[in-house]
Structure formats: structure tokens, C-alpha cells
């Protein structure tokens, strides 16, 4: 039953052919049987989930449906690790994140904390201090990241659906690499309150699901204004499922010439081109566009994201919670060793980079300049969206690579995010849907669709039309 989509599970719950308890039990059983191979979960609280299942109201929008939660989102009373040694075993959330409160209000059951790159810093989930999640399609390969655990458990049918977070592609890229759907909402559409901040001006929580419909259902529940998050947008939330099953005839789909460059894996390129043809057959009109500042996006991102992260992660120092170094000789020793012991290499690298770009004498040259380039990148998108309704590209230039393959060169790893990063800099929304497979080995390929701010409905219409006219989403890893 863990292989059900959210929509199908809901139908069975509402028809009475399935009870919330039976559904929850079957997911727990699937995790117990299957997660040894995948290592998608950091922890799960079966008792709490079953208790919630017993009182679930299936008439609610997500009534009785268990949802896996990335281990960066606070769930009251549950351990939170951010896949870091600095929190592992030493932190229990004292509060619910707004998305968790909203999920509960919609009747959903938070079940299980999914693995991730430590503090969401990475594109492979290899930066988890708790263990590496395996790609269900080939367990010698990475699931993508940073929401690799969420993508893997959805793809491996160890969850119906999951929440992830996306700072530079962390929902879309693992969704692409694991063959599921991942939607990054517009910045401000979903409250960030309670999701541990990596880069506050870029982070966004979103759904990771088996189908576009499921993403729409989940997005319905988690969207909306939150007074606890000043950056959340006070805009009405439409019924995103109403955008399903729409004609996309006449829609202009932009193909940024800067995104179709050398270095894209030939099979990824072929799958993307086939997807363009498919959308054309559905009546969409492909248009070549330009996003001229694309080549600067990665550099801009790594300045802004690391600067914010260096400050956001300052709170982890073992005074109020988390790991604390043994017998510090003074306060400085306490801080220096606690953080040296608690953080992994990538997190240290990014904190140091962020500290450097903000430090005296470098702020203008790096940080302010990056913020200005961010303005140019935003302008690229707003100009492009004057001409087209949506933008299309591969989600990742390459399919899932082997575990350990890229660990030695952080910069190479950063460049894996080139198609997803600019979306976060611009604050717009995007989705990744399965668009085919490589041949040998068989690995999923993702198609990225981007739309202007607050146009998630358009994303859903296009992605759904594409999905429903192609077989990819029905395939499962064996």
C-alpha cells in the first residue's frame, strides 16, 4: 500500500476499503523491510504516527495520509538532526513548523524524518553525517540532494509523499534523479517558520510526490500566509488540483539557449528534446529565449547562500541545545571545538566561505556585488516571462552519479546545480517531472518547468499534461 499515490490512498480511505491505521502500518512495515537498503530515513516514530492514525478524520483534505518529513523541519516532540552530528541525539523539537501544523490541520500524519545533506548543503546526500542515502534505481549511486532521503523514500515506495526543502534545487534535483515529482513553490508561498534556515532568502519548502496531482494536493495543504514568517506572501491560495487536467494548447514554452550547452549528458539532452516534442504535440509552442546572466548564477548563489548560512548556523554552538565539546577550558575553546566536532566538511567549507565574503574589506566586492547580480538574474526571468508562459530545461545536466565519485571536488559538485540555482535567486516557482530514463544503467531523468512568481497553477497544468501523456511516472525501481 506504500506504493499508492496520495490520491489513490485517499480514495481508498474515503471509500472505507482502507483504514488510516492499516495504511500507516503498511508504510511502517515497508520502511522496516526496505529502508535498510535505501537508508532514506533518519528516524521514524511509529507510535506517534499510529496514534494519529487512530484519530484521523479522512474527510479532511489529507485526512489519514502519512507524509515523510525532511529532517530539517521541526515536528514537535520528535528528534531533529538536520543530518548533523551537532544535533544528532541532542535535540528534540519544542514546536511544530508551520507546515507541520498545516499538515496536521489538513488531517495528514507526519511519519518519519528523511535523510539529507547536512543542513541541506549538498546535491548528493553524501554530506549527511548520519549515512548516505542510496538511489533506489541503482544503490551504488547517489539519490541527489539535498532532499535525497525524501526523493528516495517516495521513489522506493517507502512513503506516499514527502516534504523537502529547496535552496538551490534541493527538491527538484533529487526528484529528477530518483524519478519522482518535486515542486519548489514561489518564495513566500509556503511559510518557512520551523524549517531550519540554510539560506533564508532562498529556502522554500515543497512537496515531493509520485505524481503531479499529489504535489498539487500537498501544496494545497502547506501554502498560505503565516504571520510567523514575515516573508510569506499574503495572497489567496487557489485550489491547485483545479489546475490538473487543463489544456496547454497555445502556451509558449521558453527554451533558454544558455541551458542547452555542452556538458549536458547526451541521454538527458535527448530526453529533454523529446519532452519538448511531446509538449508541442499537446499544443504548446516552444520558443528559444535567453537568460543572459545564467553563467553567473552559481557564483552569485554561492556568495549569497554561504553568507546567510554562516550567520544562520552560528546558533549551533552547544549553549542551549545540541552537541557540546567535552570539558572546554574556556568559552572560546567551547565554541571552537563544539563546532569543529559538530559540523561536517561541507558545512565548514560553506560557513568559512560565507564568513569570508562578509568579512571586513570583502563585503562590497563579494556580497553586495552578488546581490546586484541577483537583481540581473531576476530581471532575466521577468524579461523572459514577458515572452513565454513557462521555461523548460533539464533539471540536472547529468543523471545520478556514483557514490563518492564527486566528493573530492566541491566546485564540480556545485556546478551540478546550474539549472536549478537561478530559480531560487529569482524567487520563482519550478517543478521537476520524470521525462525518461537512461539506458544502461536505467536511471531517471527529470524535466524542469519554471513559471513566474505565484504561477504554481501553470506549472501544475503543464507538468500534469506532460505526465498524463507519458509513461514515465508509472515506472518503479525494482
Amino acid at each position, binding site marked *: 500500500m506504500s506504493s499508492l499515490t496520495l490520491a489513490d490512498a485517499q480514495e481508498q480511505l474515503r471509500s472505507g476499503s482502507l483504514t488510516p491505521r492499516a495504511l500507516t502500518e503498511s508504510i511502517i512495515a515497508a520502511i522496516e523491510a526496505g529502508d535498510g537498503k535505501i537508508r532514506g530515513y533518519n528516524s521514524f516514530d511509529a507510535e506517534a504516527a499510529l496514534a494519529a492514525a487512530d484519530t484521523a478524520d479522512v474527510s479532511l483534505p489529507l485526512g489519514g495520509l502519512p507524509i515523510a518529513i525532511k529532517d530539517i523541519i521541526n515536528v514537535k516532540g520528535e528528534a531533529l538532526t538536520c543530518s548533523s552530528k551537532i544535533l544528532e541525539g541532542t535535540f528534540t523539537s519544542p514546536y511544530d513548523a508551520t507546515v507541520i501544523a498545516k499538515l496536521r490541520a489538513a488531517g495528514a500524519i507526519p511519519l518519519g524524518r528523511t535523510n539529507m545533506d547536512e543542513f541541506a548543503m549538498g546535491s548528493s546526500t553524501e554530506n549527511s553525517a548520519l549515512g548516505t542515502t542510496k538511489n533506489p534505481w541503482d544503490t551504488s549511486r547517489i539519490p541527489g540532494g539535498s532532499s535525497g532521503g525524501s526523493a528516495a523514500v517516495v521513489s522506493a515506495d517507502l512513503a506516499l509523499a514527502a516534504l523537502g526543502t529547496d535552496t538551490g534545487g534541493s527538491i527538484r534535483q533529487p526528484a529528477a534523479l530518483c524519478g519522482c515529482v518535486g515542486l519548489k513553490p514561489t518564495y513566500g508561498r509556503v511559510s518557512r517558520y520551523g524549517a531550519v*534556515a540554510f539560506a533564508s532568502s532562498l529556502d522554500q519548502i515543497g512537496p515531493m510526490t509520485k505524481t503531479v496531482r499529489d504535489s498539487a494536493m500537498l501544496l494545497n495543504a502547506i501554502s498560505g500566509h503565516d504571520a*510567523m*514568517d514575515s516573508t510569506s506572501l499574503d495572497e489567496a491560495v487557489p485550489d491547485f488540483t483545479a489546475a490538473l487536467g487543463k489544456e496547454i494548447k497555445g502556451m509558449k514554452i521558453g527554451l533558454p539557449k544558455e541551458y542547452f550547452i555542452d556538458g549536458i549528458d547526451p541521454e538527458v539532452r535527448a530526453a529533454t528534446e523529446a519532452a519538448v516534442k511531446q509538449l508541442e504535440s499537446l499544443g504548446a509552442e516552444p520558443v528559444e529565449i535567453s537568460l543572459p546572466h545564467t553563467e553567473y548564477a552559481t557564483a552569485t548563489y554561492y556568495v549569497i547562500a554561504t553568507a546567510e548560512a554562516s550567520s544562520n548556523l552560528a546558533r549551533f554552538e552547544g549553549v542551549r541545545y545540541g552537541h557540546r565539546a567535552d570539558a572546554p577550558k574556556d568559552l572560546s575553546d567551547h565554541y571552537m571545538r563544539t563546532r569543529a566536532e559538530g559540523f561536517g566538511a561541507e558545512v565548514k567549507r560553506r560557513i568559512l566561505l560565507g564568513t569570508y565574503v*562578509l568579512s571586513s574589506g570583502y*563585503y562590497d566586492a563579494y556580497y553586495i556585488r552578488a546581490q546586484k547580480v541577483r537583481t540581473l538574474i531576476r530581471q532575466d526571468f521577468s524579461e523572459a516571462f514577458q515572452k513565454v508562459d513557462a521555461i523548460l530545461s533539464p533539471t540536472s545536466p547529468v543523471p545520478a552519479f556514483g557514490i563518492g565519485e564527486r566528493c573530492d571536488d566541491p566546485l564540480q559538485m556545485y556546478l551540478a546545480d546550474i539549472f536549478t540555482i537561478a530559480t531560487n535567486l529569482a524567487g520563482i516557482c519550478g517543478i521537476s517531472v520524470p521525462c525518461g530514463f537512461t539506458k544502461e544503467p536505467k536511471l531517471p531523468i527529470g524535466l524542469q518547468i519554471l513559471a513566474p512568481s505565484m504561477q504554481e497553477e501553470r506549472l501544475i497544468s503543464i507538468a500534469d499534461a506532460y505526465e498524463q501523456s507519458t509513461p514515465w511516472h508509472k515506472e518503479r525501481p525494482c
Partner: protein
Amino acid sequence: MPASDYIVTIGLEVHAQLTTQSKMYCGCKVGYGAPPNSQTCPVCLGMPGAMPTLNEAAIEKTVLTGLMLGCENPEISKWDRKNYFYPDMPKNYQLTQFDLPLCEHGSVPLYDHCYPKDVQKDIPRPGYAVKLTRIHLEEDVGKSTHHEKNTTIDFNRAGTPLMEIVSDPDIRTGEEAFAYLNSLRQILIAGGVSDADMEKGQMRCDVNISLRKTEEEPLGAKIELKNLNSPAAVRRAIHYEIDRQSTELDAGTPQVQCTRRWDDDLGESTVMRSKEDAHDYRYFPEPDLLPIRTAPIVEAMKKLVPELPHEKSQRFVTDFGVTEYDASVLSSDKHLATYFEQAATGAKNTKLVANWVLNDLLSALKESFTEIQDSTQVPAENLRALVDLIESGKISGKQAKNDVFPAMLETGKTAGDIVKEKGLEQVSDTGALEAFCDQVIQENEAIAADVRSGNEKAANALVGRVMKLSKGQANPKVVIGILLEKLK
């Protein structure tokens, strides 16, 4: 070279806690006396995932302060992170304002009566207003308690709204600094923005001080003084620092920028940290808080600007005819001023009301350790009635002081009731008094003759005897009139 030969340049950084209900960035209650760590939440504890929100009232009160001090406001104001590690600072960055504070410029007028009593007769720059650099809005930190082997932390105070008022290096003496703090306090209280009591930590002050020989020289090394817990301590610390620096400079020891900690008990300062430990704060705009447009807030706050102490003082002189000095003291405290104004309005002798408020009432309150706003025994209208009784000759000033006012304090009754109860009403009935006077003249022929021969002063002795006969109830003014008439 004696200290007087140096030019002293002083700037003050004052932190004032705002009188809001809730904290700056979360809904936790602001206040004292709660059990440690009971007024806290994920936001003010810097828990993972928590986010700040802006307290509207704190922004409004800061803008109001700016209006009271004649500040300008940048069109857009925003918040920034100041990054440094300290255990009482939960996020390890302070949410403050860097390049776009809510208020800029403006000034603090140095009221004469705000100087220390001993220098009020000789103020070097009377009427001077110290120029301000800026006022910004930030958050307080938690409270550390240092024990022998460890430090404990209570985060109740963390996140309390703090307004930082930064002066230009525009102050020259410890006395001006003293007056600056007192004047500022009065203005903050008048606006209802802060209780501003330094001894309670509601207002805190860091002093920057440097010495140089001539105006042409650049400013000398800046020495920062911390741990100053009253205007008097600020004054003492500045005196000490001027002496210390000038002695060292005279001896050829140049000053090096540093922070010194004042010990008010020992009356000396010691180095806390040198410039080498100066922080690299890595300020950057807070991504979790959005900028504020100041114009609409300024417009709304204009309506709330109160009458400031110096304006009130001027009005008291004009409306109630009190002396400038009395007016400045009466207007120095919001509650005192309100009391006086209520008592004086409609009174027969407003100057006498001022005397009674400043002398009898204040000393009585002082003795009972009561603040004027907390005192209920003598409401303003009762004091007015008392003074009216004196003014109309119903009772003497002496009776009022010795008998009526103490009874009012004790019982809370009106002056009229007490006069009646005690039978203190003065006898002005000339028929009765003439009889007393005739009797006294008869019994004291010698004195009467003295008065007749032109020594009117001698009549006072007769008045005393008449008073005795009347058991103190005779109106002495009437008595003396009758006596003099009879002894012409």
C-alpha cells in the same frame, strides 16, 4: 600640563528599553521578576527554524522618540545582523540596524535643572543641545551570572526592545554628560517610550572619551567606558578618565584605543579589552525581516508628540506665575507636572501651590518612599483646597503645616473636614475678637502704650496673647488690624 589644558571630546551611546508589552521579535512578555527562563520561546531562544517578526509598537515608539528629539528619518529603514558569538546572545547575531536606522540627527537639550546641583549656578554652555548621530532599534541580550566556576544564563531579557541613541562627539564635560542623561530620561518618560531608569538597567550608557591639545589636531585615541550605572557614575568616571589620560599624556604616554570598565565603588577604571580584540561584525541585511517605509509612521506619531519638559516648564511660568526654577523642577517629572497642574488649576494662589508641592508634599513622599503617581492620600484637588483655605485666611500657614497637612497624609481626608473636626477654623468675627483685644490691651498697658507711641512691631506681642485667648483660632491678620486701630 593640567587637565584643563586638554580639549575633551565625549560621545554617549545610550540604550533605552522600550515600554512595550511583548519582545522586539516575538510575542514573549517583557518584564522583570519572572522566574528565570520562563519568558522565552523558540524565537528569543534562537531555536533552529524560528524566525523573527517586527514589533510595531517598538518601531512607533522609536519614531516618536525621534520626533521628540528633532530627528530626521530615512525613507526606508531596515534591519541587519551583527554577527558575534556570546552565550547570552541566542542566535549569535544581534538583530539591529546598520546603515538605515529609524532616526538620524536631532539633538538632546541640556536642561539647567538636569545638571548636578553643585554646578547649576555656573553652566558653561547654558541652553546647549547635544547633537545626535542616530537612533536605531535592536534587541537586548540575556542575563549572564558569573559564578566561581561557571556562568549561568537566563534568557528572559533576550529580545527586549532596545533603542540605541548615539550622540555626536559633542559633549565636553562629565557634568554635560550628567545633564544629557537626565534630560534624555525626562524626555523619554514624557513620551511614554521608556521608563529610562539607569539604576534599574532600563537605560544604559557607554561613554566614548578622547583628549587632544588643540582643535586643529585630530581627535585623540577613543577610550570606551562601560559599566556605568547612574548619571552620577558617568560623571565620576569621566572625571577619573580625564585625570588619568591627561596625567599619562603629560608623562608622554600616548593613549591607545581600548574599552575600560568603570568600578564605581573603587572609583577607577581598568582595561577590559584592547583594540586588537575589535570585532569584525560582518553586518548584512536580515533576510527574514522586510524593510519599513518611515513616512506613514512619522505621520501617525506626530499626533502623539507630547509637550516636552522644557515646553511645559515655559507654560508653567506663563500660566501659573511660578519661578523659572520651580517650573523646571515641576516639569522635570511627568507625574509631578501632572499633579501640580491639577492642583494649580483654579487655585487662588498658584505660587503657593507650587511651594506646597515642591516642599511639603515632596518631602512627605520622600519620607514614606512613595512615588507621586502611587500616592493616594493627598489628591491634587485636596492640596488645592488646603492652599485655598490658607489663602482665604480660614487657617494659618502654620496650622496647615503642623496640623492639617499631616492629618491629611495620615487619613486621606480633605483639609476642610480636618479643620472642622479639629475646630481649627480661624475666628475672624470682629465682635468676638474686639472683646479679646480690649481685654489684652487692658492687661498689658505698657505694651499698649509702646504701640501707641508708634512702635507698631510691639503689637505682635499683643497678637500672641489674643491668639492664646482665642485658643489659636483667631485670624492673626484680623487681630493685628483691630489692635492697631484701637491703639492709634
